[in-house]
């Protein structure tokens, strides 16, 4: 009898219980900044610990939990359960006004669709940056239309259903025409800057208005 119990006692003295070993592994794994191998665990835990078995228990314990013990190469680490990865992203939504260039490009696409980049540039009188179009595409307000049957077969842009939804339009044809814009006073709002390019050198006019507004500000 006593001979039977002796080795057990000895073992108990040498190493903590398996449950305790499991706790230890849990703590070490948790606090470590890198995955830990069984070898390293063995070095850290009291001598006589059966790290492999304790690890098996621990892995089992975390099965189906929000975090799991994953094997990374021959090391182990706690990892968020894959199905909960979405919790690790925090989305902050910030609403910004669309840039003037983007609005103008969007407007041209809406009024002239399907329209090529070259046509947009011709209407705007300036080149359209890639970023501007990309942004509109990303917002899903604009998408690619059919290619034009002209030399080079350029792609065209058209507005999307999302665009129409956003602006409360049933179709792009519902966009107010120039006459309506004018009668709504929209063309009168900024006549001088808009006039600038037509004047020729286009430098006198904007300066003039700037000068005036400065006068008023001062």
């Amino acid at each position, binding site marked *: 009898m006593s001979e039977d119990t002796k080795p057990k006692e000895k073992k108990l003295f040498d190493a903590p219980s398996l449950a305790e070993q499991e706790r230890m592994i849990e703590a070490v794994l948790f606090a470590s900044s890198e995955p830990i191998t069984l070898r390293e665990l063995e070095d850290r835990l009291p001598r006589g610990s059966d790290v492999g078995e304790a690890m098996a228990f621990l892995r089992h314990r975390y099965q189906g939990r929000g975090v799991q013990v994953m094997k990374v190469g021959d090391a182990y680490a706690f990892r968020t359960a894959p199905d909960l990865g979405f919790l690790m992203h925090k989305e902050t*939504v910030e609403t*910004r006004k669309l840039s003037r260039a983007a609005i103008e490009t969007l407007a041209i696409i809406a009024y002239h669709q399907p329209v090529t980049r070259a046509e947009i540039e011709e209407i705007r009188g300036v080149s359209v940056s890639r970023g501007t179009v990309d942004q509109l595409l990303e917002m899903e307000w604009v998408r690619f239309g059919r290619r034009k049957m002209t030399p080079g077969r350029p792609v065209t842009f058209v507005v999307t259903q999302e665009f129409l939804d956003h602006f409360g339009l049933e179709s792009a044809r519902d966009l107010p025409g120039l006459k309506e814009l004018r009668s709504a006073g*929209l063309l009168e709002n900024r006549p001088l800057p808009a006039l600038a390019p037509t004047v020729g050198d286009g430098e006198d006019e904007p300066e003039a208005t700037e000068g005036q507004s400065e006068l008023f500000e001062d």
Partner: protein
Amino acid sequence: MADTDFVQDSNEAAGSVAGRLAAEAFIIDVEGYEGPLDLLLSLSRTQKVDLRKISVLQLARQYLDFVERAKALRLELAADYLVMAAWLAFLKSRLLLPPDPTEEGPSGEEMAAHLAFQLERLQAMRDAAARLMGRDQLGRDFFARGQTHEITRVKKVTYTATLLDLMQGYARTRTRDEFRPFVMDRDAVFTMEEALERMRGLIGYAGDWGDLTSYLPDGWGDDPQRRRSATAATFAASLELVKEGHLEIRQKEIFAPIQLRKKD
């Protein structure tokens, strides 16, 4: 008692090696105290009693002895040590003399009680500090997650524009073509081009001198603003036609009517 002996001892030993060593130790001690209250608390330990039962009178003597010794050794004591010494000397006299009923201010006992309270409170805070530092500490005894998976903050920017923005934007791009017609639409403006076109059609019938005003288009003669615009445009157009050699123009005197006729 013990401390007065001590002072005498050191006085006797002054000049000897032992005395110098004692003096050195004393200097180190002085520097080791964080102010008079710290020194008092340290001195109070020699009484080996609960701080509540401490003899403030004895403590005052100990402190004053200490200051005397420092003076004897020509040590510069900080001013607050001397202030405390003065206060304790005063306290000592109050505690020793029978209370003077005419005297204002707190009694010696009240002052002594307060000093005892201060010492006890300081000691309590020192004990508390020790207990606090003796607690399990994060990063020493217990640990935070080593491999954090901080939340990636996805900053999603949504852009908005109103229909008005859109229309204004379009208007901006289109005014290049549309602004000029728009200006002409203003009904009080008669442009030179219009006048020129009109005059070209009319000069064929202008064989004799006729007033410029008779060439104004119908309906432009009544409203002053319209008349002014039409007159100016017609006059400019006339000059253009004179330059081209189609027309002659004259004016008899300043402000007299301008007259035109076809040039053959």
